[in-house]
């Protein structure tokens, strides 16, 4: 049991790292992209552009949160 929890912890630390918002944000944006693919007839180019913009926003949000934590808004 201890081995399993240590194993899970290792992969969590490796993939999610010290800012869970990046992983969560990427998953949410890609889920939004998947909804566009499944539920609409949006062309590929539009889905790709909107998803890429969402990912850029995730990056900006994560950097801004880290900067505010460091005391520099």
């Amino acid at each position, binding site marked *: 049991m201890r081995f399993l929890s240590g194993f899970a912890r290792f992969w969590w630390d*490796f*993939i*999610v*790292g*010290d*800012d869970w918002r*990046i*992983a969560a944000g*990427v*998953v949410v944006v*890609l889920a939004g*992209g*998947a909804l566009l*693919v*499944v539920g609409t007839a949006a062309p*590929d*180019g539009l*889905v*790709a*552009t909107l*998803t*890429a913009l969402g*990912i*850029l926003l*995730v*990056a*900006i949000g*994560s*950097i801004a949160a*880290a*900067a505010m934590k*460091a005391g*520099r808004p």
Partner: protein
Amino acid sequence: MGVVAATTLASGVEFVEALTIVLAMGTTRGWRSTWAGVGAALVALALITALAGYALQSWLPEALLQLVVGTLLLIFGLQWLRKAILRAAGLKALHDEEDAFASEVRAAREAGDERRLGLDWFAFVVSFKGVFLEGLEIVFIVITFGLNADSIALATLGAAIGGAIVLAAGFALHKPLARVPENTIKFAVGLLLSTFGTFWAVEGLGWFAPDDASLSWPGGDLALPVLLGLWCALAVATVRLLSPRAHEVG
């Protein structure tokens, strides 16, 4: 041959970090248990990479493979890029191998003397974790650069050359390689991982479409340099905005 040079450089940084940990353990706690940890990590890495690679390639349709690999690269790349931007803006201490070495040596001296399976358990576990973690990062680098150049073999060769150079230099000097411009190289690798991660993760969304085919970017592969340009622009803009000079009152 560009892929060999790029992979040599990028994976070399990870080898430098692993070397620092191994040197700290070996010189402080003894080499036998340290080498045992390094060997166990290399075996575990080889097994995981082979199994995961085989399973992913054999069982997953192309679009789902792009989605899985792209998402992992993207999360991983954004973590690197975020740290690199914060370091460049002066909001996070620069990675320093001499500091890292000193801190590992301190921890090794303060640790207890637990023995398991005839090994110094602290030296074994720290060496294992260090080599395994940095090794996984090298696997990510090889996948990214290798798939982009359509040659995993050349990317693997680049990583092997990077490892050989770092190991030879490290063991000849017998001290951490502090002069390697790690922060700059990590910035560049973070940009590349984020670019390819975005490209593949979005292509992989096609797995949700009825025909199961990868999504197409406007302009096809030309979207890659555009994405790289966007990530570079974001990085430069945030570093400028967050650096201390931007906050000086004129």
